[in-house]
């Protein structure tokens, strides 16, 4: 059944009749990134005004693949379990060359994680869940639909905005302006900031179809199928994915010389779909023709205006690094901006958001560009290498490693960040936390649910953790203590973290320091460094 795009109510904002007090944060764009940002800040007691020029969720499925790390972040935001319950969990990917399977992979053979490697869930559901969640913070999140920002000026210590509504225009002021207004960001346009990177000549057709009969045939579990040069779509590439509600995502490479307007028509698309799914009946739910870019802003932080998500960086979709990259932007920025607004950290801490997320965007762009190049060879020699990789892959493991139908989103390792204290451990500083099943006094628990959102010391060694202001503590297999302790009931924590180290996690779940002993001075120094203090 087609998704019900019920419009959100528009209420005339107070600014139309009288001047509003200066707000702490205004978020421009109520897509998944803007909404996640509002919820993240609300969880830390920071009020936001969210402005969106539209009044419905994303039309069309758009971002559909949510990686484990994003689900763990959404767990912290309070919608992870709802996404998991609705989403389609898949972990097996199959790559085909012409008619034959050349390689299949299993994304997550290890057990002991609350969330799977990936789920598929339409962007409109994620936005709906985030809006439901945001409405639980009615005193902190002011959602304003049909409020279009038409001008903004950075005044040094605040930003002035001009907002247009169906009832006229009004001015607004905020200490920080977060631009989550998407790939075509009007904020970016107004500031005349360019996205630099690579544009691909190929057009891709993206179609969602609804059908009762699975196009995966007898394969009962949902998978991801990718074809290089399939027999049904000569010389090009094709991708097939399952979403909830019997919706299937199909991506088809169309070549560089096609007319996007002509291709995105039911008459042109139906025969292409029939060639893949056979004679089974289907309904076209949404379609679009894209030409991909891998590009980013030079800087994501421009004094009081901060870019997050597609407004800051765009990637081709192979690897699911757009939506997932944006959710990680939020995770990185949320706690830093909250600390700055609470006066607990200097505004310079925000520079580390720029540093860390620019590095992550480069990693995402590298991976997305490599995948797109592999599936769209630009010269005969490139095609020759590509086809021989595929030919050798049937027998040789090394060639399977070279096949690239998308390197699926992994959390960025922030090892070079100025906030990290260098050290060595099974999970070294810079890495995002690895989940583990635990058992507490209240029953089963997960590390991702217990250890995120605050600075937290975690250890499975037998030395008691010291009490330090601003740092939570979690003991694993420790004797009863004055802080929460859990049993490593399945041994996963010890397998992933060992017993020799004490880990200091940042609120975004990245390890920022490791210690051999509970040395208070060393922990305080590392904590201060992670909050941007310069020694």
């Amino acid at each position: 059944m087609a998704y019900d795009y019920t419009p959100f109510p528009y209420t005339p904002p107070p600014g139309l009749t009288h001047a509003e007090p200066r707000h702490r944060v205004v978020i421009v764009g109520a897509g998944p990134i803007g909404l996640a940002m509002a919820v993240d800040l609300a969880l830390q007691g920071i009020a936001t005004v969210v402005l969106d020029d539209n009044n419905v969720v994303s039309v069309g499925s758009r971002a559909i693949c949510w990686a484990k790390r994003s689900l763990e972040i959404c767990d912290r935001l309070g919608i992870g379990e709802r996404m998991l319950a609705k989403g389609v969990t898949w972990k097996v990917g199959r790559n085909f060359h012409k008619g034959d399977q050349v390689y299949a992979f299993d994304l997550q053979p290890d057990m002991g994680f609350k969330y799977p490697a990936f789920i598929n869930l339409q962007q409109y559901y994620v936005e709906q869940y985030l809006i439901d969640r945001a409405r639980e913070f009615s005193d902190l999140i002011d959602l304003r639909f049909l409020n279009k920002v038409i001008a903004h000026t950075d005044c040094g210590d605040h930003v002035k905005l001009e907002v247009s509504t169906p009832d006229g225009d009004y001015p607004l002021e905020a200490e920080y302006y977060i631009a989550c207004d998407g790939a075509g960001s009007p904020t970016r346009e107004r500031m005349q900031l360019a996205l630099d990177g690579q544009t691909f000549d190929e057009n891709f057709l993206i179609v969602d179809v609804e059908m009762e009969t699975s196009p995966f045939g007898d394969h009962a579990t949902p998978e991801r199928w990718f074809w290089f040069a399939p027999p049904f779509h000569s010389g090009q590439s094709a991708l097939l994915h399952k979403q909830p509600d019997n919706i299937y995502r199909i991506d088809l490479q169309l070549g560089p010389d096609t007319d996007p307007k002509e291709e995105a028509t039911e008459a042109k698309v139906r025969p292409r779909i029939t060639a893949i799914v056979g004679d089974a009946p289907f309904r076209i739910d949404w379609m679009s023709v894209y030409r991909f870019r891998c590009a980013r802003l030079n800087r994501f932080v421009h004094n009081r205006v901060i870019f997050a998500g597609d407004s800051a960086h765009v990637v081709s979709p192979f690897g699911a690094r757009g939506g997932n990259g944006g959710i990680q932007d939020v995770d990185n920025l949320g706690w830093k901006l909250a600390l700055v607004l609470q006066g607990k950290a200097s505004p310079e801490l925000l520079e580390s958001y720029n540093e860390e997320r620019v590095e992550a965007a480069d990693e995402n762009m590298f991976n997305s560009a490599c995948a797109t190049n592999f599936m769209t060879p630009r010269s005969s020699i490139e095609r020759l290498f590509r086809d021989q990789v595929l030919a050798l892959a049937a027998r040789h493991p090394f060639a399977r490693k070279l096949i690239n139908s998308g390197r699926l989103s992994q959390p960025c390792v922030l090892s070079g960040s100025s906030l990290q204290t260098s050290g060595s451990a099974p999970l070294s500083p810079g890495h995002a936390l690895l989940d583990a099943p635990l058992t507490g006094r209240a029953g089963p628990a997960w590390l991702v649910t217990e250890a995120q959102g605050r600075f937290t010391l975690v250890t499975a060694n037998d030395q008691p953790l010291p009490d330090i202001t601003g740092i939570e503590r979690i003991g694993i297999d420790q004797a009863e203590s004055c802080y929460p302790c859990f049993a490593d009931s399945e041994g996963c924590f010890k397998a992933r973290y060992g017993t020799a180290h004490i880990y200091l996690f940042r609120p975004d779940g990245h390890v920022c320091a490791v210690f051999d002993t509970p040395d208070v001075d060393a922990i305080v120094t590392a904590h201060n460094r992670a909050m941007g203090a310069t020694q």
Partner: protein
Amino acid sequence: MILQDKLGEEADTFYKALISAHEGLTEAQSHTLNARLVLMMANQIGDLGMLTDIFETALQDLPD
């Protein structure tokens, strides 16, 4: 012979470098570059038995 992966995490970076090396070359220049690469890589392998095995393996199922 079955060739196990030795490139590890560097696989994509290697492939990108290989394709970049060919960028802008004519087909004849690409052939020349490939010949040089084979000779230089063979010298780096430096093991005649292994090279002979690779030749045999690479010749299998060669398309017409």
